């Protein structure tokens, strides 16, 4: 391959990398493939997929990375290509935009004066040199401070505003890169895990969400107490876990966490995510004697044989299940009645009606459970999160500059003709033309009025003796 051809290859690579077509193609691809990830459940258990898909479909989806699509190699590749495209396009355009800073167009050529769409012409008494200060001041107060150039008795005034809005688009592009960088930092240096802690117990490690491995925290966290409260309607009102951070066995902080109110310690945040009943210490049962139709309440403890008062019968709470096949909390009760083999039965907190169907002398229903809760915590570390917020802030600034500011330029040319000043005004705005037209109108008025007023005042003062 000759040197010339090689250069051709790289320059054509650069051309396609910095092309608008690539940007649009990539955005379309990303938008379309993202849909798949919302239709196909992501990171679910294999059994869950096999319930919906055939085994062969499942395997194909798995190989193609559709089951964890947003982290699949090809998805990341498209994001990386978009980033490259973004950089290339920005560099290409920045060269053009930078000219507005390095070589501002301070005066217009004769041909430009004729073709510029937005221009006004006036004539005024007196030569331009006499009122130059007034013209300058008028433009300063009506628009912004002009630069004045003199060229063979012709004066050129140039003023501009909102030059920086030309850079807004680069802020936006840069912000996308910053956000992606923040996400990368988070995925390499951070982790996301879960910990279920039973009241009174502590842990110094969490189970990572992605690989299921344990991750040491470097300190311990203890659940002192878990509280859940409900609205009268039964909807949950608040979940609260009282956490204590322990380092080397010493208490460091004790703080409650709630949904929307996490606790952060040494860069690791703890979020209230779920809860459940770990075990039951005490239960209050209502026991109805079918013979006498009398009901008594009896407190009982798990695993201890409890006599039923006023009888020769007894029972034992053998087992507790927080959720028995979707029917809610349930106890396995063994009842001992004289002259009968002991009986094994399940009683349900949420379905007391089932107790009526049970045979035997006694009917058991649950009055109250004093559970020991566990709290499900989401534990994350993400050192990239502030980078993401910086990126978001940059993006907002970029949007403001791009959509709400515009680069407006005003040129004024003052020429002397027969003792009069010929004033020409031209304007250009790279956005919101119609708004700028009104502004040019105002600037024209100011440029006419101010020198006239000043001349009148000086004439009046000359009149005075």
């Amino acid at each position, binding site marked *: 391959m000759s040197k010339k051809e090689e250069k051709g290859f790289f320059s054509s690579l650069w051309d396609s990398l910095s092309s*608008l077509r690539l*940007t*649009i193609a990539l*955005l*379309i691809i*990303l*938008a379309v493939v*993202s*849909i798949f*990830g*919302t*239709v196909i459940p*992501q990171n679910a258990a294999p059994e869950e997929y096999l319930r919906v898909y055939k085994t062969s479909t499942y395997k194909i989806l798995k190989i193609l990375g559709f089951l964890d699509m*947003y982290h699949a190699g090809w998805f990341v590749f498209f994001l990386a290509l978009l980033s490259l495209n973004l950089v290339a396009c920005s560099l290409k355009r920045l060269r053009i935009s930078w000219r507005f800073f390095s070589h501002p167009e301070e005066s217009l050529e004769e041909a430009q004066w004729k073709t510029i769409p937005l221009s006004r012409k006036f004539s005024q008494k007196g030569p331009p040199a006499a009122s130059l200060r007034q013209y300058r001041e008028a433009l300063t107060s009506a628009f912004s401070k002009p630069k004045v150039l003199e060229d063979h008795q012709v004066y050129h005034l140039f003023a501009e505003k909102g030059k920086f809005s030309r850079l807004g688009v680069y802020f936006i592009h840069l912000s996308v890169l910053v956000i992606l960088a923040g*996400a990368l930092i988070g995925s390499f240096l951070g982790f*996301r895990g879960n910990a279920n802690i039973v009241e009174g117990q502590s842990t110094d490690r969490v189970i990572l969400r992605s690989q299921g491995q344990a991750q040491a925290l470097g300190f311990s966290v203890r659940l002192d107490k878990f509280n859940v409260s409900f*609205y009268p*309607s039964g*909807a*949950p*009102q*608040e*979940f609260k876990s009282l956490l204590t951070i322990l380092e080397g066995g010493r208490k460091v902080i004790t703080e409650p966490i*709630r*949904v*929307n*109110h*996490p606790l952060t310690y040494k860069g690791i*945040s703890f*979020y*209230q*995510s779920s809860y459940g009943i770990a075990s039951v210490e005490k239960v209050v049962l209502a026991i109805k004697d079918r013979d006498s139709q009398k009901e008594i309440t009896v407190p009982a403890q798990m695993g201890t044989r409890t006599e039923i008062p006023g009888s020769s019968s007894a029972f034992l709470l053998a087992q507790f299940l927080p959720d028995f096949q979707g029917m809610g909390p349930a106890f396995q009760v063994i009842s001992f009645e004289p002259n009968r083999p002991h009986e094994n039965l399940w009683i349900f907190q949420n379905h007391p009606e089932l107790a009526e169907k049970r045979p035997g002398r006694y009917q058991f229903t649950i009055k109250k459970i004093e559970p020991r809760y566990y709290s499900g915590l*989401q*534990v*994350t570390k*993400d050192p990239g*999160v502030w980078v*993401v*917020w910086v990126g*978001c802030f940059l*993006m*907002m600034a970029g*949007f*403001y500059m791009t*959509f709400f500011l515009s680069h407006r330029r005003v040129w004024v040319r003052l020429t002397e003709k027969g003792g009069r000043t010929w004033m020409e005004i031209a304007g250009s705005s790279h956005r919101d033309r119609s708004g700028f037209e009104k502004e040019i109108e105002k600037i024209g008025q100011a440029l006419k009025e101010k020198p006239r007023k000043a001349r009148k005042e000086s004439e009046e003062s000359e009149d005075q003796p």
Partner: protein
Amino acid sequence: MISTKMLSSVTFLYLLCTVLYFNYLAFRSERLGKIAGGLSWITLLLHTAAILLRWVESYQLGIGHAPLSNMYESLVFFSWCIAVLYLLWEWKLNSRILGAFAMPFAFLFIAYASLAPGVSDRIDPLIPALQSNWLHAHVITCFLSYASFALSCGISILYLLKLRQKEKGQKEASLPALFPPLDSLDALIYKTIAVGFPLLTIGIVTGAAWANYAWGSYWSWDPKETWSLITWFVYAIFLHARFAREWRGKCTAALSIIGFAAVIFTYFGVNYVLSGLHSYA
């Protein structure tokens, strides 16, 4: 509740406004236009009062929170945003052309709130995940952006109708001939998206910040998040396609309609078709 009854009559009034704006277009009567405009402002006033009243009523029930917490309330607010943005536009540009294309949206969404069987108008207490100040910033910016996109979709429909009439060489007397010139419509589509796109971005960012507090992660590729990003991509495509001469016009108008379809799917589709963390509205 009084507020619910008020909102039912507001729904009816929006229908009336829609009919009036269509008649204004068809008969080109300035008087009809003025009546349509005046009635719209009255409707908006009642709509605002009803929302504020609902807020007060929630406090009387002892569960006080801003009326932005479920499907019903968000639909009512969405409709309100469309009416506000449209009327501001009408007032600023002193043109009622778009009324027939904006008011139907305001009507449809509030009508859906009252009529859809799955949408309950009850005031419920806030579940723990929604008890956050981010709620207001997130919901308000999202729905203002959605409303802005609804307007741009309306103008895009106008644009395509007018373009078709022009391509077919229809008579000057036909309805699209009344619409503003294609160039100004194109500029209006751009302007509404230039407002909607930053607002959508703020909506996504406030949502991410909130998710970071509530769920411990600013981005989890939840279907709602992903669809909001897809919507964002569509409007990003729109903004970039405008740079290419061959795409500007028909193509960008179509993109703005596709963008609003993505908005609608993000809003409704994700809740009804897909499942995820974001199940409130």
